[in-house]
């Protein structure tokens, strides 16, 4: 009798538990969820913001046939906040939106200039959002940015987004900026957040022909000279101060940024030829050591000493080049050093004077000059960064060419 009671009790308990967890099951089950692939946030004329969601049709993968323009669906909604936008979209598509596979979050330049702190906090509050989601600031409207990002090699858009910033480690023209790091840097006393600078290439808006810059590497998104079927591009960096967009970096500045943060495996750079002013040599440089950063406070303003070390090989070849000659190599190295020094210090002063935003995170090197955290807080690094002096020292060692000497 007693055991019967216990059995019945257990069964009832199981049923109750099943029912109670079932509602969560219903809402989280794979069939009831629409997975957002990317999200774009624009300013809106009628409401606070305009959120655009990009979905992908799963069927486009299952059949190995053609997967063309139809594979992604783009829907927009205007709302007062991101959450209410998601809510409206839930009602519209009839499924619950999940951001767990959202690969890209795009803010329009205009929107980012007004501060995106609320949006970032809201997104990070959602446990579904991956910290590795890339964050982009687009020069055009965010919506048109994701409308124009159509993969050319992969059938699936998510695959394109995953390999989106792969090139950063060997070109240095773009950065793997994620929302997790953005959030982290936003709440950090010693660093400032940054995002990928996105845009649509010139072909799509042929009317405003940008001034072609004197160097290939001075480009950035929206101003590049690339044409092709993939119209969105991500070159350069968007610099934030706290949560507001304060400026942009070009490709070469982005390269300097990555070098200082030790996030690059190697890069190609054109330096003016030592012999001929009009010619330039392409050198492939790889960092030999991590950048040494020493920071101290001199007379109340930060004095920062940076030391870069590279080894390089020469890419560009001509019939009269002779790179077995040590003197020539030293000459090239020297040119390279002085060129890089100018580039790096230009970059650093730009961040300090123009943006007053320590995106590199030099602040953490200055921590050692303070005894307690409250001392550091009193010093207020984020305001004092603009007074910094930089002493850049580049040691590059150009060795030879590749196959040809």
């Amino acid at each position: 009798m007693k055991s019967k009671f216990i059995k019945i009790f257990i069964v009832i308990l199981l049923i109750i538990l099943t029912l109670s967890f079932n509602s969560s099951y219903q809402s989280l089950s794979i069939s009831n969820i629409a997975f957002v692939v990317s999200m774009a946030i624009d300013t809106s004329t009628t409401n606070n913001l305009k959120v655009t969601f990009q979905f992908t049709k799963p069927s486009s993968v299952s059949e190995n046939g053609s997967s063309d323009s139809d594979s992604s669906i783009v829907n927009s909604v205007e709302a007062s906040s991101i959450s209410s936008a998601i809510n409206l979209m839930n009602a519209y598509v009839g499924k619950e939106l999940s951001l767990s596979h959202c690969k890209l979050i795009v803010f329009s330049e205009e929107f980012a200039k007004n501060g995106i702190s609320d949006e970032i906090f809201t997104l990070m509050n959602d446990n579904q959002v991956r910290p590795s989601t890339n964050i982009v600031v687009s020069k055009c409207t965010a919506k048109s940015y994701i409308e124009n990002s159509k993969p050319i090699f992969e059938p699936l858009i998510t695959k394109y987004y995953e390999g989106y910033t792969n090139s950063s480690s060997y070109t240095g023209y773009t950065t793997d900026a994620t929302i997790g790091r953005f959030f982290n840097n936003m709440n950090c006393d010693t660093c400032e957040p940054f995002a990928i600078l996105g845009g649509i290439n010139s072909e799509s808006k042929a009317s405003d022909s940008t001034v072609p810059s004197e160097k290939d590497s001075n480009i950035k998104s929206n101003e590049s000279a690339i044409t092709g079927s993939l119209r969105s591009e991500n070159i350069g960096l968007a610099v934030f101060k706290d949560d507001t967009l304060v400026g942009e970096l070009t490709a070469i500045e982005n390269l300097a940024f990555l070098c200082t943060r030790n996030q690059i495996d190697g890069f190609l750079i054109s330096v003016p030829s030592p012999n001929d002013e009009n010619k330039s040599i392409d050198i492939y440089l790889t960092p030999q050591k991590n950048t040494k950063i020493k920071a101290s406070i001199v007379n109340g303003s930060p004095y920062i000493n940076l030391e870069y070390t590279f080894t390089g090989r020469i890419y560009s070849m001509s019939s009269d080049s002779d790179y077995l000659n040590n003197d020539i190599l030293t000459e090239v190295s020297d040119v390279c050093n002085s060129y890089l020094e100018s580039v790096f210090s230009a970059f650093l002063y730009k961040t300090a004077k123009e943006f007053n935003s320590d995106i590199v995170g030099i602040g953490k090197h200055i921590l050692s000059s303070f005894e307690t955290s409250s001392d550091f807080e009193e010093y207020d690094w984020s305001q004092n960064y603009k007074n910094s002096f930089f002493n850049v020292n580049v040691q590059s060692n150009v060795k030879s060419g590749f196959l040809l000497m």
Partner: protein
Amino acid sequence: MPDTKISTKEAIMLIISIIIAHTIVTLPATLLKNSKSGILVNIVYVSILALLFAFILYRLFKNFQSQDIFDISDYLGGPFLKNLIGIIFIIYFISSSGILLRNFAEGLKVIYFPNTNILFIILSFIITICITNSLSFRSNIKVISIILPFVIVSIFFLFIGNLPSFSFERVLPILGEGFFNTFVVGTGNIIAFSGISCLYIIPPLLKKPEDFKKIALTGIAISALYLILCVSTLLFMFSFFLKVDEILPLYTAASYIEYGSFFQRLDSIFLLIWMLEICCYLTITSKFSSIIFKKITNLKYQKPLTFVFPLLIFSVALLPKTVAISKLLGNILYRFISLSVVFCLGFVILLLANIKKLHYNRKHKEGNQ
């Protein structure tokens, strides 16, 4: 069969698992908030204090072979004191595990079960402990020694997986809020080693009582290493724990781990392991409560008790109305109770009992002469 007693290694694991359970929920973030970047120094300092404390405990227990705090308080002040101490310890175990469970369940609710009432999440844990509490103490210990290695490995993975995104400079300024804050105010961080609480209870349960010193010191030392690992992961990785509260800080760290584009968001594996760890902790506390209760009431049958203590934990877990209250309880009340029960009360009882014994021995000697 000698299979009812616990071996030295298992006793060490017992101590560690109590500490780990707290680190999973709120402990590292609380510590971090208290001492800022001075936390590493602080933890080393506090660990040394805890080691000293454990060593003193060992010296104090040495005069009472294989007796626990209740036997000793019985010796000191008769059955009344014994019952009082027993009840205080039961309250300590029940309240700390109840609040811990509540905080963890809140995290789970946010992460996985948005539409489920928190009652049911807690209930499913309680059912689990009811079942395991009805099994033998030995089997509980064995399960812990199966699960604990996985938990420790998970923390190692957490540390190693996040290594690329560490910035070690965050440890500076090394004294954080200053000397006073780190070494005087920070002494309170010794509550991180609340695993010491089981040192008061295990002596009669040990297979080799002479290993008590080894158990105490190794347990504390490993816990200290573990704690350093946890806290440094959070410290080196995130800047926002100093400003923003997270519901399960280590979970956040777990979700940042990525190995290529394929292995991302491994947090559900970590959480699965940590749920097992929480179960271990709850099993220990409810089992200890049963053991203490049996001891102070001289009960012959332990069976009816199996459901009482899990249900008490259940009710404590349901007490806080909001997350804010449960967090507050977790941070402040837990700190207070731990400090007063584990580090003061037990210590004082032991000290007095030793004095009494010394006195008695002297008298005895004089009487003999």
